[in-house]
């Protein structure tokens, strides 16, 4: 009997067992980043910067050189790496507590300087690792352990739209929001991640992909309901679209 290999784990991922909760989409996003690094043939010259948050252990998963950064500081750490090694491919992988709360200064100024790095921003609207506290991205009415009655605009403001905000900065040359709640969305997400890395490779400037992601554990739903919740609740507030693509604007 003939057997044909139709799918295998990307060589950009190690054999370490992922620690993510059931139904969490971090694993899918890791896979997409890994596949893009291989497809662009840059794995051997990639240096990743890992955040504090659920992905804090991702240095065990990406099969490339990695720095573990302090909370929110990944873009500054990546800046230091890229300035020493401009020929290498440098990316940050950050969650919404890391990037949209404690690390706003670092992400804005990395974009503002037009650092030639790529940021994968995983937005699941909650602090996952610390146990489900409210994030800047938590939706109005959404319950969390620090907004037990649901977030209100009066008390905490409206959720922060990072992609829209960064798209106002000239140095950000590629900005897109994607999702991974179904196979079609996953395919689009991969395309965007690839373009964000290509933006770095062409020396254009800073590229970021905001990926809407699930947190069934802290949302208090099943994995399947988590995907549905993302689609029905998050996407209407966080529209999936490209906000900046200098490559296409120039073409």
């Amino acid at each position: 009997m003939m057997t044909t290999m139709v799918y295998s784990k990307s060589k950009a991922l190690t054999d370490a067992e992922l620690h993510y909760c059931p139904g969490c989409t971090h694993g899918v996003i890791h896979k997409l980043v890994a596949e893009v690094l291989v497809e662009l043939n840059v794995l051997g010259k990639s240096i990743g910067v890992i955040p504090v948050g659920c992905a804090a252990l991702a240095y065990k998963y990406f099969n490339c050189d990695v720095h573990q950064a302090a909370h929110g500081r990944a873009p500054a750490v990546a800046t230091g790496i890229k300035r020493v090694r401009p020929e290498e491919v440098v990316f940050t992988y950050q969650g919404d507590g890391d990037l949209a709360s404690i690390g706003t200064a670092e992400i804005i100024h990395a974009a503002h300087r037009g650092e030639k790095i790529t940021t994968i921003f995983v937005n699941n609207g909650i602090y996952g690792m610390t146990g489900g506290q409210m994030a800047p991205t938590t939706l109005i009415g959404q319950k969390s352990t620090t907004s037990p009655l649901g977030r209100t605009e009066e008390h905490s403001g409206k959720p922060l739209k990072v992609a829209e905000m960064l798209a106002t900065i000239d140095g950000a040359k590629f900005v897109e929001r994607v999702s991974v709640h179904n196979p079609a969305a996953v395919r689009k997400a991969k395309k965007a991640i690839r373009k964000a890395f290509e933006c770095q490779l062409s020396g254009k400037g800073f590229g970021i992909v905001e990926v809407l992601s699930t947190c069934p554990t802290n949302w208090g739903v099943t994995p399947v309901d988590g995907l549905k919740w993302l689609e029905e609740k998050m996407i209407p507030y966080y529209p999936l679209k490209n906000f900046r693509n200098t490559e296409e604007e120039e073409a």
Partner: protein
Amino acid sequence: MNKVLMKGNEAVCEAAIRAGCRYFFGYPITPQNEIPEYMSKVMPENGGVFLQAESEVAAINMVYGAVGAGGRVMTSSSSPGMSLKQEGISYIAGAELPCVIVNMMRGGPGLGSIQPGQADYFQSTRGGGNGDYRHIVYAPASIQEMVDLTMEAFDIADLYRIPVLVLGDGMIGQMMEAVEFKSIKPIELPDKDWITDGTKEIRQPRIINSLYLDPDELYAHNLRLEKKHALIESREVRFETQGLENAEVVCVAYGTTSRVVKNAIEELEAEGIKVGIIRPITLWPFPDKAFDEISDTTKALLTVEMSMGQMIDDVKIASKGRWPVHFYGKSGGLVPTPTGVKESVKKIMGGK
């Protein structure tokens, strides 16, 4: 080589460049602004990178990234900015990375003043950020000494994979003195087989990290750091002593304050009062062994600082209760005076 007249803040940059430093990340703060200004000019001229960060927090994290990627890197700040850098210094120490940091101290706490101060002694010598760590602290008393120590600091940082802090103050940063840039003795350094320069898919990934979730692993890491600290304590202590023999009182002072004390000692000697000095050059590791050189006939120690008294704790530890330890200091941007030192010595000798 001829001597050149240079401002402290600029001389420290020149020393760094000559020591092979090619990356500088910083943020403006008085009284050290000439450092980023000078670096912004000379770094590109020397094929290096100067980058003005959005904050001291970002600057030190850029350092963390840049040294991990294999660069020879420096940052600088002054007291309030150093508080912000402590997060990154803790990570750099935790990940065992080398870098050189300059602090031109000013008065505190809080925004304090922009005048010289020595009130960051605790922060500098106790591991100013979170966790069990120390880093080397050089306390130069002249611009020449700052230049010499800074040129060595990069190799020492590489040798032990530890941050080295060059601790000056607003006075040493702002004043001008004649300096000579001597070539440094090269020391044998281990290969940097830990830097992130891409696996080329021919080697295992390298990870720059300070996270150890397994308690046994973190404890093992802490023990490893402790062993390194002990090695540094046994090999890297530096100090200067003067006139300890038959001294009635021994002063302890570092940095610019030691120069004030030396003036006072000369004047006291003319009056027939014999006073010695211990000048720590490394504040960590602290020169405990210098105190073994003090005579048993010495009546007391006098710690002189440009603060309300911080090094005095280390003086008490190092002197092991053998002598009473007195303090004279000024702060807030005021500098201890030779007259103040002399009065303190006479008061001690008067038994009051």
